[in-house]
């Protein structure tokens, strides 16, 4: 949250957001494209990014930017965990036992809903469709898909991720 003091880290983050906004290459640049670019680069949308996007897009207010950011369910406003575990709950996966996979992953992570583990190692997300329905049930860890998963193999994949550094480090 905003406090009165601006640290060096705040300034650096703001600069990084500005660079990200400016470096969009496509022809059509909008509030949404800007927010997507920020989340792609920083892995979440910090509060200053809302402000910066409103400055960057002509005619956009902070309200406009919030309205878009709060609508699309992929946007998040706090840093994610080191690893992201996505479990598909679409109907193909549902029929093939996704609920048991979800429960097993929840219990491995000590979570009872989507969100971050207290040690900041993992983010758990339920995905409406990971797109590899022929291999249901499907999970994705750090955006790598694993198909024909069982509760046990899902837990195994999570454990493997636990011992690895966060992607990009």
């Amino acid at each position, binding site marked *: 949250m905003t406090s009165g003091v601006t640290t060096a880290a705040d300034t650096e983050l703001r600069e990084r957001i500005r660079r990200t906004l400016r470096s969009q290459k496509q022809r059509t640049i909008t509030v*949404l494209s800007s927010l997507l670019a920020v989340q792609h680069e920083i892995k979440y949308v910090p509060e200053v990014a809302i402000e910066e996007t409103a400055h960057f897009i002509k005619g956009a207010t902070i309200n406009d930017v919030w309205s878009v950011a709060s*609508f699309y369910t992929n946007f998040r406003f706090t840093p994610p965990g080191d690893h992201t575990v996505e479990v598909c709950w679409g109907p193909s996966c549902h029929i093939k*036992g996704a609920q048991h996979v979800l429960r097993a992953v929840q219990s491995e992570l000590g979570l009872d809903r*989507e969100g971050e583990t207290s040690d900041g190692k993992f983010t758990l997300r339920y995905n409406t*469709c990971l797109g590899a329905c*022929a291999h249901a049930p499907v999970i994705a860890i750090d*955006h790598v898909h694993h198909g024909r998963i069982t509760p046990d193999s899902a837990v195994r994949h999570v454990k493997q991720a636990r011992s690895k550094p966060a992607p990009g480090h």
Partner: protein
Amino acid sequence: MTAPFEQLKTRAQQRWNELTAGALPWIRVGGGVSGEAAGAHEVTLALNKAIEKANRRANVTRVGMLGLCYAEPLVDVQLPGGDRIFYANVTPEKAAEIVQTHIAHGVPEASLAFAQVPAPGGSGLAGVPDLNDLPTMKRQVRIATRNSGHIDPRDLLQYVANGGYAALDKALTGMTPAQVLDEVKNSGLRGRGGAAFPTGTKWSFLAGNKSPVKYILCNCEEGDPGAFNDKGVLESDPHTLLEGLILAGYATTSSNGVIFIRQGHEEPIEAARKAVQDAYDAGLLGKNILGSNFSYDVEVALTGDSYVAGEETALMEAIEGKRSMPRYRPPFPAQAGLWQKPSNINNVKTLSYVPQIIANGGAWFKGVGTPGSAGTAILCITGEIQRPGMYELPMGMTIREVLNQIAGGPPAGKRIKVLQTGGPLGGVLGESDFDVQIDFDAMSKTGAILGSGGIIVGSDDVNVVDLTRNLVAFNQFESCGKCFPCRLGTTHMVEVLDRICQNKARAGDRELMERIGQSMKVGSLCGHGQLGYNPILSAFKYFAAEFDELVKDHKGPVGAFADGTMIVPTRTRP
């Protein structure tokens, strides 16, 4: 043929000859999201390692998805000028064996092989079936997916070597825009995004508008769980879509095209971006395409997670950078669409048929399929079935034929009880209607829809009320919130279904859902609310007894867990 295209073709042919009959073996690994989920990445690593260990060299390429998902990871090896030998369900260990026999010793091992495409004039490898004789391939008519799994989607030249952009060249050199439009009208092509509207008619609304800026928007916001054919075509053969998009632009005298994809699907996004860039570099996009008077620009636009963004007016809102909520109509997109300019929205698959329609003529396309539904259906068959996959089949086969003859029927010892078709706004289908033809109109008559082509198969193990709850929970999660009958109706219906599954049904719950569904239908602006009740309505039609068991007789709970609960996301739109 234009001179620029002739030069491109010559280069493409050289490239193809190098790959298929050059100095090195060509190994194609079936990739895409589906291949990856099956382990294609690990298999590619193992292949490369084994090749290095054997001190050999080979071209190892990640191609797109052939569609035979049950056989993934799928690898095929072609020695220079030789047969293509396919290996199925390849593990890293099997990859090493393949390299040892086929690459190091130069002799394919028939016992390891799954199928083959013999070299022209050759008889192939004894004891290995021809790929095109496999039950999953034999009846396919591959038009939009003709290159899927055969070429590198990142290589424009491979597309051109297989006949790509010849239709565009043909149109630009010998056909007027009106003639291209007529060809599409005559083909009987109908939209593959779900609404099945005649494509030629849709295009003619745009062609008639004289505005200098007009858009064709290609919808790849494939949100339907259980359908992966849009992403499949895009990640396997992006140029077939792009050529279709440019032809659509020519036929309607438009100025701009936009390919619309959800962020997060990296492979299709990268494939689309590279295809667009390569097409610009080759003179297939931009000013004076192939030296003609026609100029056209295409860009890739990304969206965030929102199922409703696939609705045509919501899609335009998303491209404009706003919340993807549907607009009021009129004005219709062909009058005032993206940025208030005349626009047409076409699905990926619809556009991907167009190059072959122009190359072979509209009458040829109309000759495939049924009188009312010309061409093919690109079906994604998943769930409890022996051979899940993506199959491009002529319209007119019955669902039962597709399930049993193509997809291999249910797993041993099980019986197919229920199908979920056309996405979560579609519905469920019971056995009494399994003999319905795959055809837009025949399917609609059952109350189900063909929609985008997803067919999810459930056996007797599936409780239909629980499946319905899953579908309605999706519709609730994805409601954009603009129309309150949809926003509140879906929420209320999930509550009711939840208590039914948990054995806490109240008298009148069925009637209550009917009332809510009716309000949603009349009180919602777009298909999401209008059709959001379909899963329940269709489940009542075929599986009323299963509801009665829970609502009247309290024979629950049902679902994955003993208490009848279901885990669903808690993030909602504010």
